[in-house]
């Protein structure tokens, strides 16, 4: 027979271990989503309850579905974050217009698959850069080489050397903005220490 008490103790220890792994920033993010979902930002008494309930639900979710922590983490720089968002939306608008023109003009549109080596090492920066370049029209991520931090991007309409280089540089600029907004100090150092655009061009 299994000793019920010992089993319970083991369960409690496991629970405590999992509780220790709950990442408060992530839980706060999920609470934010919860509040948005239930209109918790109006000034009324229920909002407080929604806040508490949302946090509890987030903690329970993280207990049931534990995820590896985000290493090495991230830090917000609000000014750069705003600049990054403005940049991304600006690029989205311009590129949407360009893709619209390419769509509506007759004739085949030729494109290229380009390798873009990133300068930072962190996975989070890789993911953010990939997402941002994916929502900007004209570039689709075909393949990601995670150990080497290389994005393989399909560039619509890049049919000569100039277009290819321009597309590559656009993604580097995007990476720079994102790292400045979200990266840790090491990421920013890696960005500064990394080869400049010109060096990369010689390698590529």
């Amino acid at each position, binding site marked *: 027979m299994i000793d019920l008490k010992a089993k319970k103790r083991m369960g409690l220890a496991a629970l405590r271990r999992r509780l220790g792994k709950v990442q408060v920033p992530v839980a706060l993010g999920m609470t934010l989503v919860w509040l948005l979902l239930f*209109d918790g930002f109006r000034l009324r008494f229920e909002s407080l309850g929604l806040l508490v309930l949302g946090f509890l639900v987030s903690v329970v979710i993280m207990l049931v579905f534990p995820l590896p922590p985000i290493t090495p983490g991230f830090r917000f720089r609000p000014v750069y974050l705003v600049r990054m968002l403005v940049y991304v939306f600006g690029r989205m608008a311009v590129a949407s217009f360009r*893709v619209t023109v390419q769509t509506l003009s007759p004739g085949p549109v030729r494109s290229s698959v380009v390798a873009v080596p990133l300068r930072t090492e962190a996975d989070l920066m890789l993911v953010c850069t990939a997402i941002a370049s994916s929502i900007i029209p004209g570039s689709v991520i075909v393949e990601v080489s995670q150990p080497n931090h290389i994005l393989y991007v399909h560039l619509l309409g890049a049919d000569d050397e100039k277009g290819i280089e321009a597309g590559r540089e656009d993604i580097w600029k995007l990476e720079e903005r994102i790292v400045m907004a979200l990266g840790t100090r090491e990421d920013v150092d890696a960005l500064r220490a990394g080869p400049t655009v010109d060096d990369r061009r010689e390698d590529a």
Partner: protein
Amino acid sequence: MSDQVVAVLDWIAILCLLAGALLSLVAGVGLIRFPDLLSRMHTAAKPQVLGLLLVLVGIGIRLIPEETNVFNIGTLILVGLFQVVTVPVAGHIAARVAYRTGRVHADLIVRDELAERLAAKRRADGGGGPPETRA
């Protein structure tokens, strides 16, 4: 709010809605017009994201002053947020599968650095065998 402010907001909302709808239309045209999947991804995933965001902004401007209980800004922000976060994932998977299964029109691709890399890797592996899924 004065009538003038409401009129200006109305016009902004109209412009956003129209621009968003037009971008979505372009996305539909692109789906038919482009011959290969990779090019289609560009129009299917992209102008449509900006189009949806513009439509959401338009709705946000027009509906919130009316105090409806159906929509609130939080819902609209969530719709936009999840669209932005999920579209790249789906797009990447579709593009990757298309590339790996050879559904690429070689005559439409000018330069292909991924193919060069995969070929180099295959040579390094001693030839034969399928290319590794993760380079």
